[in-house]
């Protein structure tokens, strides 16, 4: 089917993955707040209610704990629920179901039951949504054994990874970015699945490895352009999934460049960047010429005021400074 990559938005790529997988397997159903009549808060599920009906595209009351748990139960019974939590911020209401149930059931019951479900939700800051609506919670989910954690940065990965997630037999936390829905790019066809645990080199380079995921890939690539103009050649790597993590690809790059910066929109303490940095120290200590530098959001709840918010979230300039730091250059040199 895949004859030449089509250009589409990240949003439409997700929509296409949902449609194709629903056509392929009638065990797949969608459930979430305002996903049917309203087409989803971010319009990812547009048109699916009309195509698949109310049995398979289900609008719920505002009850994240309830319908997430329902999804887990339905998955145990062999269905393949794709649960949409309107934004990752509201997953906190459902955290008990995700951590205590979804992640544990296969292990705790000795492999007797599986939970083949996907929980899709967008996150991230940058739209002045203030402290309660701006979370990046990758680290919280990645902390939990039993979950798989997926963080697509491009339309192609959004589609290919979502298809993989739906066919996967474990609970998959699928973290979309509110800032990427309108981003356009090529996407694969019906049979182009993107496997979990395969990082991708977004830009090859020699001088320093920059690891970034989701929207931060684009921030890192912008920084790489600025650095190239200064004669600094960075390699940008997108892990694409944190569970599983493709440490081999990351470590191979760092062994070549001897320097690493990890960019993550979440908070610094016990965050994704901290976890990746720890892996790099363990895997590449003897190759490193400088400490790994993390670029995170400021260690504060997200403020509303635009200037404060912009100061709080990682910008290309912060990545440039971090690369300068690991290269031992003066800031701004």
């Amino acid at each position, binding site marked *: 089917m895949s004859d030449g990559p089509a250009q589409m938005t990240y949003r439409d790529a997700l929509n296409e993955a949902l449609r194709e997988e629903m056509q392929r397997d009638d065990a797949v159903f969608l459930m979430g707040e305002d996903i049917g009549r309203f087409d989803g808060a971010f319009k990812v599920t547009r048109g699916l209610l009309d195509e698949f009906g109310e049995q398979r595209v289900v609008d*719920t009351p*505002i009850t994240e704990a309830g319908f997430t748990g329902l999804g887990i139960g339905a998955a145990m019974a062999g269905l393949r629920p794709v649960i949409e939590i309107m934004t990752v911020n509201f997953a906190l209401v459902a955290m008990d179901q995700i951590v205590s149930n979804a992640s544990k059931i296969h292990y705790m019951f000795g492999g007797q039951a599986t939970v083949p479900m996907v929980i899709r939700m967008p996150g991230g800051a940058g739209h002045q949504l*203030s402290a309660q*609506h701006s979370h990046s919670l990758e680290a919280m989910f990645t902390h939990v054994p039993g979950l798989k954690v997926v963080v697509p940065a491009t339309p192609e990965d959004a589609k290919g990874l979502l298809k993989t997630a739906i066919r996967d037999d474990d609970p998959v936390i699928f973290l979309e970015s509110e800032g990427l829905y309108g981003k356009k790019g090529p996407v694969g066809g019906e049979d182009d699945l993107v496997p979990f645990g395969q990082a991708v080199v977004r830009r090859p380079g020699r001088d320093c490895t920059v690891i970034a995921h989701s929207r931060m890939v684009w921030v890192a690539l912008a920084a790489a352009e600025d650095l190239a103009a200064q004669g600094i050649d960075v390699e940008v790597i997108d892990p694409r999934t944190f569970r599983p993590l493709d440490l081999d690809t990351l470590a191979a790059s760092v062994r070549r460049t001897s320097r690493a910066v990890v960019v993550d929109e979440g908070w610094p303490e016990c965050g994704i960047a901290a976890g990746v940095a720890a892996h790099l120290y363990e895997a590449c200590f003897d190759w490193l010429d400088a400490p790994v530098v993390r670029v995170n959001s*400021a*260690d*504060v*709840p997200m403020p509303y005021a635009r200037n404060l918010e912009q*100061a709080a979230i990682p910008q290309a300039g912060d990545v440039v400074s971090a690369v300068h730091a690991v290269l031992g250059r003066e800031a701004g040199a």
Partner: protein
Amino acid sequence: MTHAAPAAQPDHDGMRAMFRTMTLIRRFEERASDEYMAGRIGGFLHLAIGEEAAIVGTVSALRPDDPLTSTYREHGQALARGSDPRAIMAELLGRATGICGGRGGSMHLMDRERSFYGGYGIVGGAVPLALGLAWATRYRGGDQVSVTMFGEGAANQGVVSECFNMAGLWDLPIVFLILNNQYGMGTPVERAAAVEDFYPRAAAYDIESWKVDGMDVLAVRGAVAEAARLAREERRPACVELLAYRYRGHSMSDPDTVRATEEKERWKARDPLVTFERVLLGEDIIDAGAIAAMQAEIDEVVTDAAAFAEESPEVPVVELARDVYAQPWNDDARGSALMRP
């Protein structure tokens, strides 16, 4: 300071004051809408236009020291509590002079001095806070009544049922106000609730509860006054469901295409400002001249608030990490290192 609880039925001065507050909320939010369209307000902006009777009827039935919590749709609650329109508008614009210093924005106003304990963004999340405020009142032997306003959508969250149960179990001095505007974002009540009335849910936990016309400010006032009396004097929780309608979309980014035009028109014909004005005129409580003067005065207040906000300074970026902790452990008042290179 002790306060007398407001009467169930206001006197003429009281009614004029209620009408003024309703008009202030309407004009303020219309201006906020303009500020948003002009790009000066970012993020989400949820307007309560159409819900003024529910807000003012409620707040006017309370003592000023009764703790109040709300949702993200809370400009009206702050204004009704008497917060400075300048400080609210400045918060909406994210300025240093804002009521929360530009940190919260439209969804997160708070005015501690006026016992307004805040607007919260996670649906259902503020209801247990109000229960805690009621708990603290009883613990200290106070006679305040804790009041929490939330939507019918929020009423479906499990935590709300948990709170009904605890309030009923422990007889806490709380009034649950379910503002049933019949939609949670694009979802109409009948597609989200097994039973379309919400007050029986509280009743199931032995909480006295009613449903009233939320477009009629005097009816709201009377019901909330009775609910507050029960909580204050008889130390029993109460619940009032207010049936109302919002005239705008869920937020400024909602094109509002889900609701039928005919339905919107039907509810607009019951505009709480228009109907209350008619009552006040009909009973000679106010005359047309006084209304015109009042409206001119409010226009000035709102224009002044917007000018103040627009001219106010931005929040200095060096303050980004201030206030993370009430008791910071290092000199520069940061919670921990900022971790920026």
